[in-house]
C-alpha cells in the first residue's frame, strides 16, 4: 500500500464520508454470504435446515470471537499466532481444574482469564515495547503456552463439567448460547471501537503510528492492549469450545489459526493495519462456516472440500486486491495504445 493510501484512510475526507466506500468490505462479504446461502438452498438444502444450523452455528460463533481477537491485533499491523495456544490453554484450564465438578468451574474460568491477560501482556510487551516482529514473538509465545498446556493436561483431554456444557453448549429460545456470546462480544467490540475515544485512537494508531506518535498518542500502550484484548477473546472462545465439545482435546486451538486470519482478511481489514471491520469479520466467520457445511452437505470428497474452501478464500481476497474500475481503465488504456500503434503502422 502506498503512502497516499494511508493518508486517505486517516483523513476524514470525502472518500471516507461516502457510504459506498465505508461499506466495501461489509457489502462484499455480505453479498458473498447471501450468494452462498442461496447456493446452499439450491444445491445442498440440508445444510440450511434448522438442525444443521443449530449444529454448526456455535462453531461459527467461536470462529467469529477468535476472528475479532485477531482483528484487533491485525489493526495494529501485527499478527497473533499464539491464538492456537491461547484457545487450547483455556480449554484445558476449563476442563482439567474442575475435572467434571461444576463447583470448581468459576475458579478455573478466572485462572484462564488471568493467564490470558498475562500472555497478552507478554506478547504486547515483546511487540509493542521491545519491538520484536509480531510473527516471531507470538510463535515463540505459542510454544511456551503449549508447554503450559502440557503441564496442566499432560496432553490428555478431560470431560467437560456439566455446568459449562450447559452454559456454552445449551440453547436459549432455540438458539445456541455460543451465538449470544458472539453477538454480545461483537456489539461491545464494534461500539468500543467506533463510538469511544479509546476506540477511535486505537484505529488511528493502527492506521498511521507515526502520525499518532506525532500528535502525542501512546502508540505502544495501544499496541500492547491489542494483544491483551485478543487473548481475552481467544480465552472466551476456548471456554466455549470446552463447553460445546464434551471431550475437547488439548490442541483444540490448532485448527483455528488459519481461519482466524482468513476471516479478518475476508472481513476487509487490511493486514497492514488501520480500520477494523468487526461486523464484516463476524459475517466472514459465518461465511467460512457455511462454506464447510456446504461442502459436507454436497458430499464431495475431502480433497474437493479443501479445494472449494481455498478457492472461496482466494476469491474473497482477490475482490479486495483487484480494483475493478482501475483494472478496467488500464485495459482500456492499453487497448487504446495498441490501436494507436496499429494506426501508426498502417
Amino acid at each position, binding site marked *: 500500500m502506498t503512502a497516499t493510501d494511508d493518508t486517505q484512510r486517516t483523513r476524514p475526507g470525502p472518500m471516507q464520508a461516502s457510504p459506498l466506500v465505508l461499506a466495501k468490505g461489509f457489502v462484499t462479504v455480505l453479498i458473498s454470504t447471501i450468494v452462498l446461502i442461496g447456493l446452499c438452498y439450491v444445491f445442498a438444502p440440508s445444510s440450511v435446515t434448522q438442525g*444443521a444450523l443449530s449444529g454448526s452455528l456455535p462453531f461459527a460463533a467461536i470462529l467469529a470471537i477468535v476472528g475479532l481477537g485477531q482483528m484487533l491485533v491485525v489493526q495494529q499491523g501485527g499478527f497473533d499466532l499464539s491464538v492456537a495456544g491461547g484457545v487450547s490453554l483455556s480449554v484445558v484450564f476449563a476442563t482439567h481444574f474442575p475435572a467434571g465438578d461444576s463447583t470448581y468451574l468459576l475458579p478455573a474460568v478466572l485462572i484462564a482469564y488471568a493467564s490470558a491477560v498475562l500472555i497478552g501482556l507478554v506478547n504486547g510487551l515483546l511487540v509493542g515495547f521491545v519491538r520484536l516482529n509480531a510473527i516471531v514473538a507470538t510463535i515463540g509465545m505459542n*510454544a511456551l503456552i503449549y508447554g503450559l498446556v502440557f503441564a496442566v493436561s499432560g496432553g490428555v483431554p478431560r470431560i467437560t463439567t456439566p455446568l459449562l456444557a450447559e452454559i456454552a453448549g445449551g440453547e436459549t429460545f432455540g438458539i445456541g448460547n455460543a451465538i449470544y456470546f458472539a453477538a454480545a462480544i461483537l456489539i461491545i467490540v464494534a461500539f468500543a471501537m467506533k463510538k469511544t475515544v479509546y476506540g477511535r485512537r486505537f484505529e488511528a494508531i493502527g492506521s498511521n503510528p507515526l502520525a499518532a506518535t506525532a500528535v502525542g498518542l501512546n502508540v505502544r500502550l495501544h499496541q500492547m492492549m491489542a494483544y491483551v484484548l485478543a487473548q481475552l477473546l481467544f480465552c472466551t472462545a476456548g471456554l466455549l469450545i470446552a463447553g460445546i*465439545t464434551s471431550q475437547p482435546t488439548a490442541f483444540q486451538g490448532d485448527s483455528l489459526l488459519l481461519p482466524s486470519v482468513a476471516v479478518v482478511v475476508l472481513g476487509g481489514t487490511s493486514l497492514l493495519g488501520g480500520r477494523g471491520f468487526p461486523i464484516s469479520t463476524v459475517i466472514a466467520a459465518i461465511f467460512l462456516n457455511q462454506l464447510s457445511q456446504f461442502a*459436507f452437505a454436497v458430499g464431495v470428497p475431502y480433497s474437493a472440500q479443501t479445494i472449494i474452501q481455498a478457492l472461496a478464500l482466494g476469491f474473497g481476497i482477490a475482490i479486495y486486491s483487484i480494483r475493478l474500475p482501475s483494472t478496467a481503465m488500464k485495459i482500456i488504456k492499453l487497448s487504446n495504445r495498441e490501436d494507436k500503434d496499429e494506426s501508426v503502422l498502417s
Partner: protein
Amino acid sequence: MKVSYHKGQTALAAASVMLSVMGSAAFAETPSWCGPNPATLALLDGFGGNSWRLVTTASGQAEAALCPSITDYQYADGQGNTQKAISDIKSFAARGTNAIVVFGDAGPAVLPALKAAHDAGSIVVPYRVDVGGEAGKDYTKFIGSSFVDDGVSWGNWIKGILPEGGNILFLSGPAGNSQGLDELAGMKTVLDDKYVFINPEPFAVTNWDPSLTQQVLSAEIAKNDKIDVIVSDFGPSLVGALPVFAKFGRSIPALATSDGNSLGCFWTDNVAANPDFKLFTVATGNDNVRLAVQWAIAAATGGVMPTDEIFKAPVFEDSVSGSPSAVQCRADLPGSIYLSAVMSGDDQAKAVGN
C-alpha cells in the same frame, strides 16, 4: 519445556506402573520372550498427546517392566511433528539403544530413519501404522494391527442387527488414513449391496477431532433422513457429537465402533431415551504395543520370539447379545480410559494423570 515435563510425568507414571507391576510380578516367572542378554529399550511415539497414547505408552512400559534384562527404558514424543519423530529415532540409534519400538505416525516418511537405525545395529520394531519398507532389510519386524478384522467384526454385527440391509455412516480420521481404508475393506467383505454407505467415499473425514466430528455429524444427520448405523474407528470422539440427534428429534442409531469409558457411560446414560441406540465395540488396541515390545525385547535379549505377528483387536462390548461383554461403564474413573486394555482401569487412571 514441553518435552522435559512430559518426560518427568512419564517417568513418574512409569515408576508407579513398574512398582505395581513388579510388586505383582515378583513371584511370576520371567516371560519366554525375555532373554538373558541385557538390553536398553526406547519407545518412540509420533504423537503422544491424547489419553489413548498415554494408556498405550504406560502399557508398553508395563510390558517392558516384565523383563528384568531391560536395563534402561526411555520414551520420546514426536508431538505430531515428523521432523522431531525422525530426529528422535536417529538420536536413540546414535546413543546405541539396543531396541527401538516406534509408532510411526508419519508413515513412510520415517522409513529412512528406521533404516538408518536398523543399519546402525539397533533392533527396530515399528508398530500399528504401516511405514512401508521391508522387514529384515529396513527394520527388524513390523507389528501391525488388523484393522481389516475390525471392519469384519463390525460388518458381521451390522448384518446381525440389520438383516434386511440399511444405511451406514462411516467416520474415520484424516483423509486417506490406512486404518480407515482397511476397516472399510473389512466391512465390504461382509456387507453386500443392501448396505449403503451414505458418507463421501471412502469415509467421512473427522481427523479424530471431536469438534470436527460434531460438525460433520450434524451435516450428515441433516442430509440423511435415515441413518441406521454409524461406524466410527474412534468411539469416544462421538460422545460430544451424538447429542446432535436430539436436536433433530431423532433417536441415536446403532453404533459400531471402538471402546472407551466415556462412550460406555454415555450409552448407559442415554439408552433409555434412544430406543435405537445399540452399541458394539472392538478393543481400541492399546495392547498392540505390548506385542511390539515383546518382539523388540525378544530380538534384543535373545528371548523366544512371540508366535503372533499381528495384533488382532478382540471384540469387547455388545449391547445386543451381552457377549463377550455387556457395555461397561466405570463412572468413578475418568472417561478417557479404555476398559478393554489389559492394564486395569485404576492403573490407567494413574497413567493419564487423574
